């Protein structure tokens, strides 16, 4: 009998979870950010339901600050898989709800996404939202369940989590509640990259080394775009960079890199001694408990 390696075991676990979602819920969806984790989710979902199509829509909460490469990739992927793509814009929510946008150099809509997400969940009455969060990303995530129940405010209450035993997932909820499901909870960043390589999963070009105009801010490289404010003393540099995560242009930092292929990216990651969130997410630097607080407020 053949033995399964760690990637095959992680894949089987994720596919099992996806099928539980499709089997247990009436209106599930997959939250698609355009990043490598959610691209991996889409690949897993295709495998889970082959020869059929993915039986739930892909939902993208578009902040309006995305990398154009990531948006193009999103549209092509939806087309290729035949999955329904639902896009809702944070900009619309800001107008309709008269929300206060952040000001300043890197005014981010990251926190405002939660409003659009909750509205979208209500609009389509989604009872389960599959997301690409991993427990290794951040300490607050280490205790989150794979099936994580949220109330109608999207709140995650770490003290009221259900015990999660064996591979039995309890998706029973009351009206107004929904479940966030994290099929790749047990994957690390390196697992994701190795899986992408083993499965030959296509990624947006910004994950590989390319030339880009950037400014340097507190040791991090931020892409020059219409969404950030340049000051007189900002020097615009041209650098060979790639992204480790793909979020908004306002709050995702690039890393200098020559890695143009998956092999080279993986080699660089294995040699890096800075974690993914610390290197590339500007907002997480604010406080240790930043993630925990945002999650309590309905963040992904």
């Amino acid at each position: 009998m053949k033995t399964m390696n760690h990637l095959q075991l992680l894949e089987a676990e994720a596919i099992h979870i996806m099928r539980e979602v499709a089997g247990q819920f009436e209106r599930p969806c997959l939250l698609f950010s355009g990043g490598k984790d959610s691209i991996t989710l889409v690949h897993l979902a295709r495998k889970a339901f082959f020869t059929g199509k993915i039986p739930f829509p892909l939902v993208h909460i578009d902040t309006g600050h995305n990398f154009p490469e990531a948006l193009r990739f999103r549209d092509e992927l939806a087309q290729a898989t035949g999955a329904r793509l639902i896009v809702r814009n944070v900009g619309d929510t800001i107008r309709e709800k008269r929300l206060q946008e952040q000001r300043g150099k890197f005014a981010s809509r990251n926190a405002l996404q939660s409003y659009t997400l909750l509205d979208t969940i209500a609009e389509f009455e989604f009872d389960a939202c599959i997301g690409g969060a991993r427990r290794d990303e951040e300490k607050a995530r280490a205790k989150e369940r794979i099936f994580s129940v949220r109330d109608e405010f999207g709140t995650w209450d770490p003290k009221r989590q259900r015990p999660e035993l064996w591979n039995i997932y309890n998706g029973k909820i009351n009206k107004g509640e929904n479940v966030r499901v994290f099929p790749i909870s047990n994957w690390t960043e390196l697992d994701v990259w190795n899986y992408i390589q083993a499965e030959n999963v296509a990624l947006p070009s910004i994950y590989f080394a390319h030339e880009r105009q950037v400014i340097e801010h507190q040791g991090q490289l931020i892409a020059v775009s219409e969404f950030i404010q340049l000051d007189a003393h900002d020097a615009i540099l041209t650098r060979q960079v790639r992204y480790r995560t793909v979020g908004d242009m306002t709050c995702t930092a690039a890393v200098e890199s020559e890695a143009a292929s998956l092999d080279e990216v993986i080699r660089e990651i294995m040699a890096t001694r800075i974690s993914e969130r610390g290197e590339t997410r500007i907002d997480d630097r604010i406080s240790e408990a930043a993630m925990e607080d945002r999650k309590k407020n309905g963040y992904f």
Partner: protein
Amino acid sequence: MDLLRFITAGSVDDGKSTLIGRLLYDSKSILIDQLETLEAQSKNKENGEIDLALLTDGLRAAREQGITIDVAYKYFSTPKRKFIIADAPGHIQYTRNLVTGASTANLMVVLIDARQGVIEQTRRHSIVASLLGIPHIVVAVNKMDLAGFDKSTFEHIVADYEAMAQSLGLKDVQYIPMSALRGDNVVEESASMPWYKGPSLLAYLEDINISSDVNYDKFRFVVQYVIRPQTEALHDFRGYAGLVLSGSVKKGDAVQLYPGRLTATVQRIISGFDDVNEAGPREAVTLTLTEDIDLSRGDLITSGSELPHEETEFDALLCWMDSRELAAGNKYLLQHNSRVTRSVIREVQYRLDVNSLEKIPLPDSVKLNDVVRVRIKTQQPLAFDNFSDLRANGCAILIDETSHVTVGACLLQQN
């Protein structure tokens, strides 16, 4: 590279968090920025050294109280293996968390303070390991530095534990003397204990054989979802997407279907985008059958000389996980793999004292963290194996019908 899941059991004082921190730190799984955060936090404490325990306490509530209040999962890997650590709090109040963390583990690391030896808590953790059928145990005799790295102290603890392990039927037990704080025998071998000739904890975890933890004989496949593309090309395709819980299946195999015990033939096995000839334990595949039979979610496809029980009434060892008490006669939803059915607790036979294994007959009430033997009746028949024979098809959870909270873990047993 394969995957080992283990749970660490011990109390705040046993140095459990320090041990996990040490494993992550010495195996170079801690990254620079996490280390910086750690250094900043450690300065708030009294000594100037890095407090490795802080690595494991993710939630603010846990950090503020200085204790672990919930199961936290940690990840690291070496060139040989990927490891998933379930870090479960050891205090008596948290038996439910210990059971949760233990449910997916191949191995339990039982921490013992060398100065205290085998205590009530050690016994409780080991009983949970035995009940949940965890195949491998490592007894980590920690704080050897505070016991003068004394060989006879270690040997006394080994003898005490060995006696208990035998009475509990724990078969594969490894003993390692260590100091998590100083790093002796965690990742690096200890220079202070030349009398110990065995492997360090990490070396042991890397090399232990876990392939026999899985059952390769009794084929059990749970149908999670029925794939019906209904396109022109796949008009009659009816694929049963699910998980191989145990055993294996080949194309052309005769299989028994539950409920109903009908016989059928496996036509195709689809793994990802490809047709394959066979599938083994833990693989997520899609099966089609030659016969025109209509299966649905929760049904079981099986083969093998021993087939599962199919019953509406059976016994279970139940770990109660809710702050509201259980009473005989109460109704719950019972989830077994992908099958959810209504159930009623017909009878509470006895309570099992998890410190002594003593059976206390007819308890008045069943409280949070109690382990009881119950008789359960279900609305639909359940196709299961005894938990003691086949973990993968012998477990179930109870769900409260109104709050929908998971209130119990059941180890199924049919005599």
